[in-house]
């Protein structure tokens, strides 16, 4: 073999693949599908991870989120069983060791109107001077926080002021905007839909933070929210700021000891790990599907190559008769499967990267579209590619071995 012109042998392998163009093409396609799936899922997974860490990265590392129920997210149903978060709760939490600040807040939703434009927004009412503790990266494009005594000022999140679907700002500094919200009111035994409406003056516009939540919220003072949304001083969310992220767990334990399961506590870390766990399971499932399709691709290679060996029995017999050793023939057939893997791998990576972007476009990601950018780690791409090549060569071993061990006599006799 040492003097054998390897390039000539590779040329012969290519010739064989080219002769069966359709079959080779379909087999390459099988590999492409597996590799592309694997690549897209990798890219989407990476993108989602980035997205989640961006979202949660805006929350202070030492912020704990206290809600009335033990559910992980948000203050939802108001069942009588739940602990109401009141000024008493705020005082109790403030006395817990390791707690720096306790920041109560009201949340509400409504329609924000500015001139002829309107949009649905989430409204957060809190003492804005404490907002830096909850979202430390917060900064103003213009204006400033609304003071706690101001019942008519409003701060707009960046994507509220600059929505992507408008070529001009939705609202600007010093302008009046209206918040409307509807509720069912009982008027003398008759239920009636009532729309409340209040004007606010834009006192500040935030810089983009990268957090979907903060960027698309509007902020008013605690008292204004209490009055407008008729909260009767029952808070929706209380942010507990600890003296440092390292004592989050300790504070969380203290709060739980006090309130038991009547209160929900979430730390950004916990949210992140919950989301990542769910995402991980989901992505793991998709990856398994992709892995199966890569495996199917390998089986496809076995079938294609094996059929080819059977069809080319005479050719193999001839090669043996004119002095090609079993090793040389093994090499030639492995080159065929390797070529299929190489082509499938390269095209699959390309298709996978394109596919990840396409999937982002297709996936139903809600009204205020979550902007996930696929993220591909080079090591992941290399891994998928090498896996495709390795699987192809492994798949080629059996057919190639069969070819290499064919007896030249029987091979030549075969019609």
């Amino acid at each position, binding site marked *: 073999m040492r003097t054998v*012109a390897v390039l000539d042998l590779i040329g012969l392998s290519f*010739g064989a693949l080219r002769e069966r163009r359709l079959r080779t093409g379909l087999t390459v396609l099988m590999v492409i599908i597996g590799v592309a799936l694997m690549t897209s899922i990798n890219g989407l997974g990476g993108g989602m991870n980035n997205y989640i860490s961006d979202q949660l990265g805006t929350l202070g590392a030492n912020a704990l989120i206290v809600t009335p129920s033990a559910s992980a997210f948000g203050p939802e149903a108001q069942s009588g069983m739940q602990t109401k978060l009141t000024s008493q709760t705020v005082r109790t939490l403030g006395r817990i060791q390791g707690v720096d600040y306790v920041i109560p807040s009201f949340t509400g939703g409504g329609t924000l109107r500015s001139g002829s434009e309107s949009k649905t927004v989430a409204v957060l009412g809190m003492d804005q001077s404490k907002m830096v503790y909850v979202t430390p990266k917060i900064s103003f494009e213009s204006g400033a926080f609304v003071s706690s005594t101001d019942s008519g000022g409003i701060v707009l999140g960046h994507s509220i002021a600059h929505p992507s679907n408008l070529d001009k700002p939705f609202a600007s500094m010093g302008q009046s905007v209206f918040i409307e919200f509807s509720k069912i009111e009982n008027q003398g035994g008759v239920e009636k839909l009532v729309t409340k409406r209040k004007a606010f003056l834009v006192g500040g516009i935030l810089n983009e933070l990268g957090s979907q939540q903060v960027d698309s919220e509007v902020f008013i003072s605690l008292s204004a929210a209490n009055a407008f949304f008729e909260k009767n001083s029952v808070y929706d969310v209380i942010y507990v700021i600890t003296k440092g992220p390292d004592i989050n767990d300790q504070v969380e334990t203290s709060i739980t000891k006090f309130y038991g399961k009547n209160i929900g506590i979430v730390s950004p870390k916990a949210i992140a790990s919950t989301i990542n766990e769910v995402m991980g399971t989901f992505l793991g499932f998709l990856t398994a599907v992709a892995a199966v399709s890569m495996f199917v691709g390998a089986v496809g290679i076995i079938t294609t190559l094996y059929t080819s060996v059977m069809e080319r029995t005479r050719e193999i017999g001839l090669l043996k*008769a*004119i*002095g090609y*050793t079993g090793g040389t023939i093994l090499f030639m057939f492995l080159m065929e499967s390797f070529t299929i893997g190489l082509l499938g791998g390269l095209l699959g990576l390309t298709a996978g990267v394109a596919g990840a972007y396409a999937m982002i476009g297709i996936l139903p990601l809600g009204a205020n579209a979550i902007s996930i950018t696929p993220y591909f780690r080079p090591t992941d791409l290399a891994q998928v590619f090498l896996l495709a090549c390795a699987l192809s060569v492994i798949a080629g071993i059996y057919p190639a071995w069969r070819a290499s061990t064919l007896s*030249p006599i029987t091979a*030549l006799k075969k019609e």
Partner: protein
Amino acid sequence: MTGQGEKLAIETLDLKKSYKMGLVTVYALRGVNLRMRHGEIVSVVGPSGSGKSTLLNMLGALDTPTSGKILIDDVDISRMGERALARFRNRKIGFIFQSYNLIDRSKVAKNVELPAIVAGMPKKLRNQRVHELLDLVGLGDKSNRRPNALSGGEQQRVAIARALINDPAFILADEPTGNLDSKTGEEIQNLLLRVNEEKKATILIVTHNLELAEKTGRILHLRDGVVEKERAGLMPHSKPSDSDLNVSANGRA
């Protein structure tokens, strides 16, 4: 044994081959002693089942004998391993088959080149030899065609060029005219005879075609695994007086 100290191209010594078919042992060759000098052209004829194919496989180094020896260019190949046999076939033997066995997807030149690739012949020399040989067989202008675009006779010419590329010790032709009409068959016959004369190639032809056999130097009649009869053909340089040197065939040694 040669008596003249002349190096032989092929010599078999009491060559025997038996194999089992189910419960029956078939004795395909029962002691064949055959000698061929360099530059000879010899034909082997015989009815089917006479052991022709088995002898061909043995001489072609495609199979190893049960007992006895095969010396090709004074090298005993009867105990060689598979790799050594492959290498041997590549360097020392040129095959011509009844059904040509060309690779249709490869061009004529590539087909001729095939044995030279594994022989490690440099590309430049390969190309040069391919063109020389294609000229010799009269296909100098068809090196870029594909075999399936050629007639049967032309395909067999390509196979003859392929058999010659590594300058083998001898050429083994298995029914070279078997798939051809009589006129084309005759052309191939003449080409083989010309190759024998011009290139001094040693050629052993296994055939049913008695007309072709007559034109070679010697004709060996094989029957029931032994050389039953041997006689001179028309090719002048194998004189009958050589026959003492060539064959001593009897059933068992």
